[in-house]
């Protein structure tokens, strides 16, 4: 059983990463990743919605008939996002001012409906919750990495305004490269596509290396097996 969960977690974080493997949710991924902090915040909000929607969909999966499952899931997800939006506006107002515009966009994040449809509708509650968390954190990681690279190249800062998102104790994350104005292109949409392209290529290289390593392993060359892992 624990093997199954391990598979789910590994899948969500790396092998089926929403952005880097499934290439879903690229619209929010491009729109918010102008800084590492924005990417992190959007990722965490998406994780919350994704986990909650996976749990709910899994709970009602036996009562929902396949003919009307899509409208039911859509209503469910839209309501969840609206509730998260209102709750954040009320109780995490500072964070809401940074991310407010993007929270509503979670509704159209196809990854959430995708997970509801392809996983939660067919799986138990616990497995769905784990899947939601793993996929969410995979998404968060991807957004944060893209955001950090774009922010560093484009503005010369790292995690600017992170203390506004995470609280004043995280101010140590904020760094600034003195004397570097940044390349504006990286902040603009083309920069996002360029960074994503390089990261995808990098993941491909890593994956093909570890696949070659696994092949070599099965052929008996155990010495080289961990080279790509």
């Amino acid at each position, binding site marked *: 059983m624990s093997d*199954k969960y391990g*598979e*789910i977690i590994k*899948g969500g974080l790396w*092998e*089926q990463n929403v952005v880097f*493997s*499934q*290439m*879903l949710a690229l619209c929010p991924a491009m729109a918010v990743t*102008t800084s590492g902090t924005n990417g992190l915040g959007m990722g965490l909000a998406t994780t919350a919605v994704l986990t909650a929607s996976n749990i709910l969909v899994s709970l009602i999966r*036996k*009562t*929902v*008939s396949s*003919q*009307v499952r899509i*409208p*039911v899931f859509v*209503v*469910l997800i*839209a*309501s969840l996002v*609206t*509730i998260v939006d*209102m*709750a954040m*506006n*009320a*109780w995490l*107002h500072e964070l809401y*001012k940074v991310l407010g515009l993007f929270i509503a966009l979670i509704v159209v994040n196809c990854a959430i409906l995708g997970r509801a449809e*392809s*996983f939660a509708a*067919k*799986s*138990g*509650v*616990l*497995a*769905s919750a784990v899947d939601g968390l793993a996929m969410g954190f995979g998404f968060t990681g991807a957004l944060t990495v893209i955001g950090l690279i774009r922010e560093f190249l*484009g*503005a010369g800062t790292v995690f600017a305004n992170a203390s506004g998102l995470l609280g004043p104790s995280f101010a140590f994350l904020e760094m600034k490269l003195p004397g570097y104005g*940044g390349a*504006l292109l990286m*902040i*603009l949409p083309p920069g996002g596509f360029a960074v994503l392209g390089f990261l995808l290529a990098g993941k491909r290289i890593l994956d093909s290396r570890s696949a070659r390593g696994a092949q070599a392993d099965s052929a008996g060359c155990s010495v080289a097996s961990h080279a790509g892992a």
Partner: protein
Amino acid sequence: MSENLETAAAAPQGLGDAEVPKTGGLYTLIERLREQLAYQPVLLGIVALAASAALTAASSATSGAIAEAQARDLRDSLAQVLPQGFADNDFLHDTVSIERDGKPVTIYLARKAGSVAGAVFKVAERGYAGEIQLLMAVGVDGRTLGVRVIRHSETPGLGDKIEAGKSEWAKDFSGKSLGDPAPERWAVKKDGGVFDQFAGATITPRAVVKAVKGGLMFFAGHRAQILGGSQ
């Protein structure tokens, strides 16, 4: 690309479905009903009702806190365009509403010892990418006390220097009035005016200058109305 789609489609599926449902009787009943035509609209109706109920509950639970947070935001931004210690009243609730181009503008009155010392109101102008919204404060002498951008969608790195957090540019307006500089000098330097433009962005500061000038003219045109504002 096709590789990836396959991996996505090959997601671990059916986990946990093998579990025997604990409420077996209910599930068999539902399973039998599930394929009937009438089941679909009823299910959709129930889901819609439940969603509406949840949204209503969430809305009533959060509306107070949201209104409070928004009032706090407004008070903060109003206080930012007024010099420190300029007003001693609760200007958030001391307002007059005057029509401008067919739309009502709320004017917040800053009072010192009971008499109006300045007025704060919103102005907007079309910038390079959408509307730029500003909050400006004008003193009774017709001079600008402060200008602050509250919403814009200008190019990051170029036009966004109008933001108070990014550059000091917006401070240039403080102390300026319709006669100082002369009306024809109310423009960016490129157009023969007194205000700086930014390298690579002229349209944005041009729009802000126009908005502030328009705001001052609006104030001048309704001076009596504003200063005699309701207590």
